[in-house]
């Protein structure tokens, strides 16, 4: 156990944390406005990555255009599902939204299996991104640097957007109280749709970055990252964008250090550790690191 090993683990933790943060920020936006745990969020990421495989092979040659195209595709898909599956349920019990998101998740998964493949596919990587860079003795993959930058930039941009812009303030008003915001003359459909679009867009971005990082994607890859992103969002304080961002990194670092500093025989128990961490946070600080506590009232 030396200093280099520690810093290498730190880098690895930041890399996976950036991905979790990206997914968690998107999830948190939707949760913040609708109180919906969107189980389909991880599957949107999967659809983005899987369609990346096919688009890359047949249509687009430039990785940059591919990136934009897939992010937009995921965003539009999010909008479509918001319109047909979630909007008609506005005002229904939260449980119904939960069930619907499970159904959407199932549609995305079986749809992908039927339209593309049930098998894992190789995701074409870009030389600049798959190369390992040597920075002060640490091995850093290009894709991880890109993920980190994108995660930081999107969290900053979204925090700024929700705090200062007119639409962003409308968004926060709707999430605070739907009825009252409507009385204030806000049409809630627009901010909600926008939240879905941005959240899904980020899921798409994460999907492509995931493909570039691991080089392989499959139709079931979405569920666990989606769930872990929710854990990250809860750890940070769900509904808060900086909270989800911080939570993503806390989770990524905790996970990597857990594997890195315990004997290898424990590494299979990684997910037990992640969800045990969730239990602890829920019990000690249910509102999360950056969340505000709410009292119970009759």
């Amino acid at each position, binding site marked *: 156990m030396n200093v280099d090993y520690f810093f290498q683990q730190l880098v690895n933790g930041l890399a996976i944390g950036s991905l979790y943060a990206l997914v968690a920020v998107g999830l948190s936006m939707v949760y913040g406005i609708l*109180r919906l*745990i969107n189980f389909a969020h991880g599957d949107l990421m999967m659809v983005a990555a899987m369609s990346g495989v096919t688009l890359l092979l047949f249509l687009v040659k430039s990785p940059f255009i591919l990136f934009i195209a897939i992010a937009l595709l995921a965003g539009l898909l999010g909008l479509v599902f918001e319109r*047909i*599956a979630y909007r*008609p*349920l506005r005002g*229904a*019990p*939260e*449980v*119904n939204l*939960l*069930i*619907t998101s*499970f*159904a*959407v998740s*199932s*549609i995305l998964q*079986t*749809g992908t*299996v*039927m339209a593309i493949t049930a098998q894992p596919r190789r995701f074409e990587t870009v030389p600049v991104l798959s190369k390992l860079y040597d920075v002060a003795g640490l091995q850093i993959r290009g894709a991880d640097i890109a993920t980190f930058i994108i995660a930081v930039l999107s969290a900053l941009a979204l925090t700024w957007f929700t705090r200062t812009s007119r639409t962003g303030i409308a968004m926060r008003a709707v999430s605070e109280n739907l009825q009252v915001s409507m009385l204030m003359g806000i049409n809630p459909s627009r901010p909600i749709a926008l939240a879905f679009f941005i959240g899904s867009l980020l899921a798409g971005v994460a999907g492509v970055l995931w493909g570039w990082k691991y080089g392989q994607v499959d139709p079931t890859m979405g*569920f*666990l990252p989606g*769930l872990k992103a*929710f*854990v990250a969002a*809860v750890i940070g304080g769900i509904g808060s964008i900086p909270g989800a961002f911080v939570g993503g990194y806390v989770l990524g670092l905790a996970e990597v250090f857990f594997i890195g500093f315990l004997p290898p025989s424990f590494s*299979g*128990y*990684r*997910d*037990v550790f*992640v*969800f*045990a961490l*969730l*239990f602890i946070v*829920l*019990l000690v600080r*249910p509102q999360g690191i950056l969340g505000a506590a709410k009292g*119970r*009232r*009759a």
Partner: protein
Amino acid sequence: MNWKWLLVVVALFIICFWADVSWNGYALRLFMFLGLYVALSVSLNLVNGLTDIFSLGHAAFMALGAYTSAVLTLPLERRPSTFSTLATWFQEMVVPFPLALLAGASVAIVAALLIGVPLLRLRGHYLSVGTLALLVIVETLTRNMAFLTKGARGFNGIPTYTNVFWVWGVAVLCIYIVVRFKVSSFGLAFNALRQDDVAAEATGIPTAKYRLLSFVVSAAMAAVVGGLWAHLVRVIQPNVFSYNITFLVVAMLVIGGLGSISGSVIGAAVLFIIPEALRFLETGRLFGLSQLILALLLIVVMVFRPQGLLGRKEISFGKQRATSNEQ
């Protein structure tokens, strides 16, 4: 136990007997799975329908029951090779099936207590995700404790003990227990609890105790169903008792109507029969179509009938007893 229950039991016994002697193997198997799903959805209804808890961890308790029962009943000749790293007395001990089912239920009760005492302090979505975390934890444990469960390769060689009488016997028992809960003073307390737990607490209902009680009883029932499942399919893998089963059972509940026991029986039947009936469509590239149709159907029901097919009402034959439970 009044005459209506006796009638149900006798009628089901006759059907089971008929199924056992004259149905073909495939139909009999479907009938057994239907019974297991009925038992699962009714037992989950005790928690998700009657109280304010919305658990997504039902399949975790199934897994505990299934693995406990499978490990305890594995025949003597297979034990030394399967449990080669474990103590000799364990390799030489085979537990009879009914006892193994009870052992599975006990393991689930202990797990439900361990997890329930801290977890049930939470509310709403946090609680749901906490129970979902339980699912991931149990799955990861069964995957990694290969010395006991054989891990991802799956635990095979489980003797076939489950028959149609076991399945429907347990299903009727589950229905009976949950109905007793619903029509008793517990049901009334649960009703108050679900509508407003703070107000319920203020009127002196021990909400924490009641929530835990329903969670534990429901977990025990799920474990028994898990045990029956294991002795029906004979091979179990960690990923069997996972999101898919949880999702399906929750969907059965919600489609039938949360809180309605006859609703969850109907929901189980509808969601079990539809994919089976649509299976003929799944040829070649259309594999998975029934799953897709099921998901679409679920969304349609959620949009047009958010309270489920029956709402909180019950279908009852004869004179309806006043339960004061309908909202």
